[in-house]
């Protein structure tokens, strides 16, 4: 047993989980800020972005070190490749949270408008996707990751509906065009967060099953030929 190697892998996993927590918190805060028109939460999201960026660099460096010094193979190699890609997706999730917070800050300066779009409902769905994607990573559960992939279609539909309704609002009530545009951009940011959660789920499937399911290549995913790994 390569004890030091296993310790390094465990530390890498813990670092990524901490970063996942930061990214998830950033999205939650940004969505709450939208619902409550809360400037303080917006500022918190902006301030904490640097923590996510620092974590991204640390994880990349650690993964690079392990690749250079330990020559991992098989499930360990897939794990490190997955970690580096999930790391990048989580950093983008943080960026999207910042984009949402900036839109909310813009909206707060405008009069409140009653818009025909349920952003909190979309935020709940997207938050669940991020959470489940991270859970699938924690537990090494491909079926949980698979469920995340299926949720992506639901969020895409919500985004499409939001676009239709908000464009109609802009035509019918030009005085709230700016607010509708901000809401439209928030819907797009949330949909992108869902895309990143989908990417994370795909990477978990790659790690656990060795199957590449990107770009709807779901048929390539083979059922596990042995119980899924619980360690890591």
């Amino acid at each position: 047993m390569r004890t030091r190697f296993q310790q390094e892998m465990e530390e890498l996993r813990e670092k990524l989980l901490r970063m996942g927590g930061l990214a998830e918190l950033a999205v939650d805060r940004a969505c709450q800020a939208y619902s409550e028109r809360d400037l303080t939460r917006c500022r918190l999201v902006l301030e904490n972005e640097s923590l996510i960026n620092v974590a991204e660099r640390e994880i990349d460096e650690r993964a690079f070190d392990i690749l250079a010094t330990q020559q991992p193979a098989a499930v360990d190699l897939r794990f490190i490749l997955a970690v580096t890609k999930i790391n990048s997706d989580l950093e983008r999730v943080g960026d999207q949270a910042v984009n949402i917070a900036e839109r909310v800050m813009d909206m707060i300066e405008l009069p409140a408008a009653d818009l025909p779009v349920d952003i909190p409902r979309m935020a709940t769905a997207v938050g669940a996707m991020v959470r489940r994607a991270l859970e699938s990573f924690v537990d090494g559960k491909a079926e949980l990751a698979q469920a995340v992939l299926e949720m992506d279609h639901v969020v895409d539909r919500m985004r499409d509906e939001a676009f239709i309704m908000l464009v109609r609002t802009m035509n019918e009530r030009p005085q709230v065009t700016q607010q509708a545009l901000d809401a439209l951009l928030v819907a797009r940011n949330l949909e992108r967060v869902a895309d990143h959660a989908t990417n994370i789920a795909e990477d978990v499937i790659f790690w656990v099953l060795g199957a590449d399911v990107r770009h709807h290549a779901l048929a390539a995913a083979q059922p596990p030929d042995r119980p899924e790994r619980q360690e890591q």
Partner: protein
Amino acid sequence: MGVGITVEHVNAFYGKTQALFDINLVFQANHATALIGPSGCGKSTFIRCLNRMHETIPDARVEGTVRIGDLSVYNGTSATQLRRRVGMVFQKANPFPTMSIYDNVASGLKLNGFRNRKQLDEVVERSLNSAALWDEVKDHLHKKSGASLSGGQQQRLCIARALAVQPEVLLMDEPCSALDPISTGKIEDLIFQLKEQYTIVIVTHNMQQAARVAEFTGFFLLGKMIEFDKTEKVFRKPSDKRTEDYVTGRFG
């Protein structure tokens, strides 16, 4: 050109102890195949079964069928006839210490009664070239002994000696385990080139080496062939958990 090797139901014994259990394998011609596994797993025993080197050990015996091309290894073929077609390189370079570089390479041919000097010169040059050693030794072929070369050069000299008799198969038993990274790199490059002309079977403890040089990899454990597949499959997603545990360093 290399030829394929077919191994069927091979069992090997040292006295009453069984070292290999029902090994079945097909080595493809002109490919390199790596055999990996922890110490004592039977991979060196197995490679020795391919050219009957086990016969040098008292009480060792082999059951089963091995065919190298159209040659049946265990059915009436003499060891000399077999080893003309199957060259072998060992863990520790073993040039004949009192012979010159030239004589080391020419020894196999001379042993077979080959005396034509001009043709011997050609074979020696061709073999040393194939072993990527010619440029380093061409100016003192007769002056220096094989033992005066560096470890990496000695190993390449042994490869040249094996190639001189124009075998179809080259067996390598941990050929780089005593070499530095530069010499190891040269031997690995060589293996890559040689497989165009020869079928290569290499036993190695260095899994990255297996991944670098071999198209196919077999994993041995406790005398059994656990998994045999394309090398990238073995190192990316092996089918058997025991293989995965070994290549990820969880045991062995």
